[in-house]
């Protein structure tokens, strides 16, 4: 079952691009990563899902309900953590959390204290006295206190120290094990790599790739680096599946995706001084998609 279903979602702000033809599904129980550089359209997509922004065209469904007409029903089971958190000045943390809880028809008091304990949050401080990181913690507790079935996180870890990031990831994983679906937008690949099952990569408003993490880095791509004694002809590796080709002296480096046998045979014909073959990390693949701009 799909918790989120987005079909051909397009948003223009006047004439300037927001997102174009974005389509993807997030299945129940998965942690779905949404990655892309600044200004690619991550927040626009998320804000459209939440009903904060009205789309130019396209449809979006959460829990099978229309995001643009049934927002009220959907939001009962959604927890949202924005990238920048702003709350009412003059309120204490606990007052804000209680105010937030009051919108959901259940008793969240126990959960508030649990979460505050985990995130090490002082409930009696005033909001305006909190540092950026501590405000973010308020945001996390605020997003999770009503035990939502879908958690939407927009660049959640900025401002958190590594220890808190760790705790936060644990928290998200725990929620996920309870069956909660998570949509995580980020440009920090390590956190996506750690948490997510699948990712969508967005670039200049368009989705360029939707893939499982394993497929993205493990099964399909190999980073191959060889050293030779002699100059190779430039088009020696000009075959299908070779990308990101660089030459440094007699060191040749490229990403390979495709039948391993073909490339091994190709390599076997050369006199090679040294060779490394490894799985690229997400960063490399990510850079590859962005720099080449290829719809692979």
């Amino acid at each position: 079952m799909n918790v989120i279903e987005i079909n051909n979602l397009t948003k223009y702000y006047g004439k300037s691009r927001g997102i174009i033809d974005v389509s993807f599904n997030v299945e129940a129980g998965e942690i779905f990563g949404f990655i892309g550089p600044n200004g690619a359209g991550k927040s626009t997509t998320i804000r459209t899902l939440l009903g904060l922004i009205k789309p130019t065209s396209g449809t979006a469904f959460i829990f099978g309900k229309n995001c643009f007409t049934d927002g009220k029903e959907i939001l009962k089971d959604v927890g949202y953590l924005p990238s920048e958190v702003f709350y009412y000045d003059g309120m204490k943390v606990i007052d804000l959390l209680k105010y937030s809880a009051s919108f959901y028809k259940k008793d969240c008091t126990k959960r508030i204290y649990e979460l505050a304990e985990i995130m090490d949050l002082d409930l009696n401080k005033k909001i305006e006295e909190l540092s950026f990181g501590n405000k973010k913690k308020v945001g996390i507790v605020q997003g999770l206190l009503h035990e939502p079935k879908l958690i939407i996180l927009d660049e959640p870890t900025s401002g958190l120290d590594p220890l808190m990031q760790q705790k936060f990831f644990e928290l998200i994983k725990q929620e996920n094990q309870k069956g909660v679906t998570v949509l995580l937008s980020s440009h920090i690949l390590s956190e996506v790599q750690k948490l997510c099952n699948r990712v969508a990569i967005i670039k200049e408003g368009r989705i360029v790739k939707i893939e499982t993490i394993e497929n993205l880095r493990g099964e399909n791509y190999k980073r191959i680096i060889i050293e030779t004694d002699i100059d190779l002809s430039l088009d020696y590796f000009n075959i299908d599946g070779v990308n990101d080709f660089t030459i440094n002296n007699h060191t040749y480096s490229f990403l390979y995706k495709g039948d391993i046998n073909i490339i091994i045979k190709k390599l076997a014909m050369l006199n090679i001084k040294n060779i490394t073959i490894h799985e690229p990390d997400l960063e490399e693949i990510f850079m590859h998609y962005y720099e080449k701009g290829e719809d692979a």
Partner: protein
Amino acid sequence: MNIYLHELKQQRKATLIWILSLSILIILLMMMYPTIQQDAESFLKLLENYPEELRLALGMHIESITSVLGFSAFVFSFTMLITTIQAMIMGMSIISKEERDKTADFLLTKPLSRTAIIINKIIASLTIFTITNISIYLVSLISITMFSNTTFDLMFFTEIFIGLLLTQILFFILGLFVSIIMKKVKSPLGVSLGIVFLLYTLSTILVKDTDDIMRYLTLYKYFEPNFIFMNKSLEAPFIILGLILVILLLTFSLIIYNKKDITS
């Protein structure tokens, strides 16, 4: 309900200050009543030497000042300027402040329709206006009984306050509407004051009489205390007109706000 209570709590201090300053103003003006009554009465004697139409043109105002109700009407014309400022500022900021302070993300991702949010906030504001009006109603009653020894008709007095409340609602909804059609309200204070003073001054300059055409344009004079005094009651056409305006502006506000993009 929670938004309603939250708004009331947030506005508590400001409301208290409005009520206090209004009360001080009213008490001060009411203290003046005995002297002004004397001035006015001596002037009325002088007026007897002038032709009939002149007396009608100016005399109405003066005659009304000599009675305690008529004088109160003058006092409440001043009060009205202040309460409409309160109403307009509140209307301008009640929705726009969420965007300016960037708390809109918080509020609008709660399971509530935008219409429900606006309605809740409107009811909270109406509560505040009602509290303000009842407070100054009581202060006025007390100060009138203290500073004058004549009896007066409580009904007129009550109608003047209903008029004040209606004017406040009108300006509140106008403020709400303006804040929603403007994309970003940088200074709700400045815009509200600009509009209020423009309308107030225009109404003072242009509207001379109860049946002046300009009265329809400047919201100020729909339920003007002096006019209520002269007509002995609120005027039904203006109540209906006001109601239509409120419904229209509110409907437009809701439609536009429901379509609005809340950008971060």
